[in-house]
């Protein structure tokens, strides 16, 4: 039997899946790797550890599910988080750690560029919001603030390009990942001259551009042997997690949008044209030359509910976050929709879409003497989802969204999914225990292999069996409270700025991922 393996290089770790050619999961594994915050604004990962984690998982997946049954691996397909940057020298050796999407070191540069004419034209050309997450700004930061590293750099890669280079020796980046760098003109699908100029590099500093269906060369001999894979095993460059999650939910075509709620979240649509926006609120990334995945990201999603649980959950079993979250959700379900008038602004980590305000902060609003702990629980979940709704609502100004799908660890919790349906007043489709990114990678591989005629055909085969229908009464309640939510989110602009400034002066700076800074062992010279 033939199989397809997908490798997802995610924010907190690597996931590998094995599928049969009908898209059934044969096996899967995950492996964590850490994010280091040597400075509060920095968010970095060790490329070697990501590589070793990938190899370890791939090898174990093959040995457990593939080799004993004599399955043949037809294809290995990659997906990855967007916006990572790794500088390598002329021998391909990393110069420092990989910088992840959550890194904010270039915030000053981003602030300046965002408010300039160049910023506006670069956004229109590249589709990537002008934000510190963008590799455009990270590379510019390295050029100006880390001159030694810049001088030694032969190429600026993404984490995926690095891993693929380790395995095959090729320097390639796919259209999707490239379109999230802020350096690619998404209309001509070539590197944007003005962007390269701003970053201070030439096209030679970047890996070769490749469509998502590109075969990224042959596995090196040593890996063929250690993994037990034949030389002809196809290594597919693949796409980004955002694009593949959208494809994996079958969101190709008009009238559909998909919501992802993991630690962070996003609302996305797919189509043959870009979303234009004066206020630069949306991203437009490429799946193929004529297919754009557009939408808006939020910083504050499942991670905020984890924060709440960490502070106020019961933890009857030590470290059992899931059980504690489950108990809180049961508590929240006893409170009527609208939390009896308690509202929560979830901006604990600043916010991206749609308000794009790094100074935004959280608040409970409307508190009265009758509110109990359970109201706070429900209000917290409602606040996180009002924020998701606010992204969907702004997308709705340009696209007529008739139905929704939801994926991600938090989005697929039934209580949350129902709330999304009620807020949007749209039916919501979902499936339990599945992983949209990997299914997207499977569909991409199967299309490349000729199993489907096109990505459209592949997307049409996706079935999301669970449907949540909106409750009209709940919708009316949420709509009324959402009005206040939306007003507060912009009305508090000055106060957000004032309190963020005070917090910076007096308190500890906030970090995207709560963990202690790591002090690294000094290496022998």
């Amino acid at each position, binding site marked *: 039997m033939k199989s397809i393996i997908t490798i997802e290089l995610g924010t907190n770790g690597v996931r590998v899946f094995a599928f049969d050619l009908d898209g059934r999961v044969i096996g899967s594994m995950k*492996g*964590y790797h*850490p994010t280091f915050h040597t400075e509060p604004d920095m968010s970095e990962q060790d490329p070697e550890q990501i590589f070793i984690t990938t190899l*370890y*998982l791939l090898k174990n997946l093959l040995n457990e599910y593939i080799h004993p049954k004599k399955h043949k691996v037809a294809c290995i397909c990659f997906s990855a988080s967007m916006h990572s940057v790794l500088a390598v020298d002329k021998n391909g*050796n990393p110069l420092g750690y990989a910088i992840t999407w959550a890194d904010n070191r270039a915030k000053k540069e981003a602030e300046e560029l965002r408010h300039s004419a160049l910023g506006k034209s670069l956004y229109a050309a590249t589709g990537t919001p002008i934000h510190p997450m963008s590799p455009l700004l990270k590379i510019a930061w390295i050029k100006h603030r880390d001159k030694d590293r810049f001088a030694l750099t032969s190429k600026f890669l993404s984490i995926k390009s690095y891993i693929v280079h380790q395995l095959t020796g090729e320097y390639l980046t796919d259209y999707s990942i490239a379109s999230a760098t802020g350096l690619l003109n998404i209309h001509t699908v070539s590197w944007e001259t003005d962007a390269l100029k701003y970053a201070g590099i030439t096209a030679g500093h970047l890996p070769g551009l490749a469509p998502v269906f590109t075969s990224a060369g042959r596995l090196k001999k*040593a890996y063929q042997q*250690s993994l037990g894979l034949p030389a002809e095993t196809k290594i597919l460059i693949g796409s980004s997690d955002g694009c593949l999650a959208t494809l994996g939910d079958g969101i190709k075509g008009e009238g559909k949008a998909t919501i992802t709620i993991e630690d962070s979240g996003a609302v996305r649509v797919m189509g043959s044209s870009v979303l234009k926006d004066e206020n630069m609120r949306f991203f437009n990334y490429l799946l193929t030359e004529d297919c754009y995945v557009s939408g808006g990201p939020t910083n504050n999603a499942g991670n905020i509910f984890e924060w709440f649980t960490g502070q106020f959950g019961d933890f009857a079993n030590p*470290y059992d976050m899931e059980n504690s979250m489950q108990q809180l959700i049961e508590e929240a379900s006893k409170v009527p929709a609208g939390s009896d008038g308690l509202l929560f602004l979830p901006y604990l980590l600043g916010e991206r879409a749609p308000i794009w305000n790094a100074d935004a902060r959280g608040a409970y609003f409307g508190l009265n003497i009758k509110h109990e702990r359970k109201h706070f629980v429900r209000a917290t979940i409602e606040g996180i989802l009002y924020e998701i709704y606010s992204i969907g609502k702004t997308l709705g100004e340009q696209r007529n969204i008739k139905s929704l799908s939801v994926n991600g660890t938090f989005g697929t919790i039934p209580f949350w999914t129902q709330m999304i349906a009620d807020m949007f007043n749209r039916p919501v489709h979902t499936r339990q225990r599945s992983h949209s990114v990997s299914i997207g990678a499977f569909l991409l591989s199967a299309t490349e292999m000729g199993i489907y005629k096109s990505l459209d055909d592949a997307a049409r085969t996706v079935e999301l069996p669970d449907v949540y229908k909106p409750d009209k009464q709940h919708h009316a309640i949420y709509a009324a409270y959402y009005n206040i939510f939306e007003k507060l989110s912009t009305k508090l602009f000055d106060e957000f700025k004032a309190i963020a400034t005070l917090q910076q002066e007096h308190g500890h700076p906030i970090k995207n991922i709560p963990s202690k800074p790591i002090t690294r*062992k000094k290496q022998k010279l």
Partner: protein
Amino acid sequence: MNQFVLQHGKSAELRLFPHILEVGMKKNGSIQLNTFPSTISEGIRMYYIIEGKFEWRIDRHPYIFYPGDVALVLPGAPFGSDNGILEIGSFTWIHLHMQKTTGGHIAPGKWSGLSDSEGAAIGKILSFNSTPILSRFSEAGKILKCIHIELFGQEIGYQTRINHEITELLIQATRQMTRQNHSGRDFPKTFMHLEEILRQNLAHQWTVEEMAALVGMGTTLFNERVKSYSGFSPINYLINIRISEAIKLLRRPDISVTDIALDTGFYSSQHFSTTFKKLTGFRPSEFRKNHLQNK
């Protein structure tokens, strides 16, 4: 109880207890200058606050101590207050001599009744957890009081009981420290803390029991939580860190493969080579050759 100080080599009461360097109790009725200067001791020091509020500096960082708190000072760390000021209040303390293990860590001596591995684990945990305040730790006050009474009472069996109580104090302090640093709520934070210590001491031959104890967990729960959080068993996760660090070192021409093997915690270059090749398909020397060439 009245104020007192007993010192090793000076006080007859300590003749049977060479591991107790100093033990005492102080009641201070008025603010005094130049009485509590910064000093360094070769032993581990614990100060339990009975009354008052004290501002002390441990290892150059200032801390404030309230009744019920314990200041824990590791061997070699300077401890005292600025200008030698001693505030109003009372406290009791004990200084204990600790042995140095071959790995350079501290451990209590034979007197303690702890097994070698438990003693070493306790020493390691006390050294790695860098919080010098053990908060709301009234148990320590009770144990110290009991030690004082036994020392002066000298009833039958007092030698054994005192050694028992000191052992109890070390065990309780270790547990208090891990509990205080790891609330049982935030596993990612706990795991990061563990990772930090592993990376800083990669050459050490870690056991699962030691890793679990470091974060205040039993091994069963620890194995389960690490596996569900990271996807790896604790030992496999550690091996991944080792290989990743080794790769970084292999990319540099100036360190021998044997040194890399030992620095990253493999017990021989053979062991390193086998593990490395199993995972990466390359022998370390081949990997190095491939990555040092100009392309």
